[in-house]
């Protein structure tokens, strides 16, 4: 693996059992993704984008082939090691934000740091820094129900970024947002990508997201159809 390569995928296949046999979601994927990339896995519904992201995020495991993430083979990780990887080095952004409704903005962003067992003053500083990057310092005491969709997604980005992960995996992050909010969010992520050299990997079929990508990996029927540098 090259020094700057964070993710290395070889002959990756993923099958899911179905009533009639099995469905192949990923069918021999080969990929390398390096540090500070702003990459998107694009394709129509059912092309395997989310499955690929889940495997990279150690939320799922390959059926065949190899997926190395930050030097660790996803297939070989046990439950605790996979949890540790996610806890310390990966960040997630979801289409429907997945904020915890009973927690305030501050508490939602603080949660990953609680899992890292950082002390209170460290946590406070890191949460406030993160909220400042996302322009949410006036919302610290608000609960998700009191926020707009754009604000919720910014909170989700702050939660993903607060522990300064090496890789952020974003699954359809703008699917529930209007155009203005989508652009706002994407600009924020571009800025964080360049400021912190964090690798962003998107699963999307949204043209707005695609327009911000520096690299576009097109999936069709579980295979990489095209892998191109977009020049953004």
């Amino acid at each position, binding site marked *: 693996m090259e020094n700057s390569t964070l993710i290395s995928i070889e002959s990756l296949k993923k099958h899911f059992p179905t009533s009639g046999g099995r469905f192949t979601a990923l069918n021999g994927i080969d990929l390398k993704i390096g540090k500070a990339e702003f990459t998107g896995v694009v394709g129509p519904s059912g092309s395997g984008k989310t499955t690929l992201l889940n495997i990279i995020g150690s939320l799922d495991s390959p059926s065949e082939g190899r997926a190395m993430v930050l030097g660790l083979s996803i297939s070989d990780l046990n439950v605790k090691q996979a949890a540790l990887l996610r806890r310390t080095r990966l960040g997630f952004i979801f289409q*429907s934000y997945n904020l*915890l409704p009973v927690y305030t903005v501050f508490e939602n962003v603080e949660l990953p740091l609680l899992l890292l067992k950082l002390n209170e003053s460290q946590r406070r500083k890191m949460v406030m820094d993160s909220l400042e990057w996302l322009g949410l310092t006036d919302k610290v005491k608000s609960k998700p129900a009191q926020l707009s969709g754009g604000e919720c997604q910014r909170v989700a980005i702050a939660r993903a970024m607060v522990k300064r992960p090496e890789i952020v995996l974003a699954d359809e992050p703008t699917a529930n947002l209007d155009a203005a909010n989508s652009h706002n969010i994407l600009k924020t992520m571009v800025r964080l990508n360049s400021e912190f050299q964090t690798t962003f990997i998107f699963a999307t079929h949204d043209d707005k997201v695609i327009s911000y990508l520096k690299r576009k990996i097109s999936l069709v029927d579980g295979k990489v159809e095209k892998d191109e540098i977009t020049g953004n």
Partner: protein
Amino acid sequence: MKLLFKLAIKNLTGAGLRTWLNVIVLSFSFLIIIWHKGLLNGWDRQARNDMVNWETGTGQFWQSSYDPFDPFSLTDAHSQIPSVFDTLITKGEIAPVLITQGTIYPGGRIQSILIKGISSDQRVLKLPGELFLKSNDDLPVLLGSKMARDNGLKTGDVTTIRWRDVHGTFDANEMKVIGIFDTNVPSVDAGQIWVPLDRLQKMMGMPGEATILVCGNFDTNGRTPEGWKFKSSEELLKTVTDIIKMKSAGGIVLYIILMSLAMLAIFDTQVLSIFRRQKEIGTYIALGMTRSQVVGLFTLEGSLNSVLAALLAAVYGIPLLALQATKGMSFAGTAKSYGLVVADKIFPVYSLGLVATTIILIMLTTTIVSYLPSRRIAKMKPTEALRGKLQ
């Protein structure tokens, strides 16, 4: 664990009304179980005290033929009071009682009774024997209030009494009711009259004899005179102990119903939580929690209901229970009429052991009930949970 605890508290308080409904129901269970057990404990204590004070003393010597459940044994169940007890009897530490059968005719009706003779200067039992000393009547008798009520007798009434003496010869006389005592112990009241011991001995032709010797607070040192058998306090109180045990066992049905209601609410909440919070479960896992940690979090959330319930129960329960322990609970004219030893008012007794056992029992049950549905989380696929897909 500290983190899980913090998150569980946060989630519980965040759940608002759902949590409080569970907590309120569970706190009722805490309170009612403790109250009911406390009431039985209070009854047990009061019944034992009353039995000791009115009937059993701290133990009894029975004439070897005496069988309280066989009235025919009374013919032979009498012996000379052993001389080794003379001093104790003089001091009032032992109360000899002579028992025989008889018949009275109140208002012209025939009524079989037990005639019991007791010394006027005994201090072992609460029976007001001293009233005999104030009477100049030929055959003064004392009655319990139930006996007096059942037979329409009152102080000053005179009625005929008939008995058979030691030779089996019938004799009769006029007895005069000189006092009516009130007691919670039906077995010294119903169907019996109390007369001076020396008078009964004379009536029966059994001078210096007794059927039982009721002991006060002294150590028998295992001395049992020949022809007599010793019955310990525990043996004598066995009936009341058995009744309380039976009542306690009956109470378990009540506890099971109460606990089932509370546990059903918690079980439902847990199932609903896991169903509704799938995305949250997925998020916890995505953020780096293991599935077993999430199971622990949900189990803790459920079991913390019982902690909050214990706190809530303490807030309104301690004043209520304390008030009841001070004021007592009235049972006037109910169980006593069935022959049970029940005071007009029972004062519940709440021991630390009772409270601790109840809390531990409820917490343990709540934890198990919380854990059962939470196990489903361990089988969830995080990718499906994140999307909130039903599994």
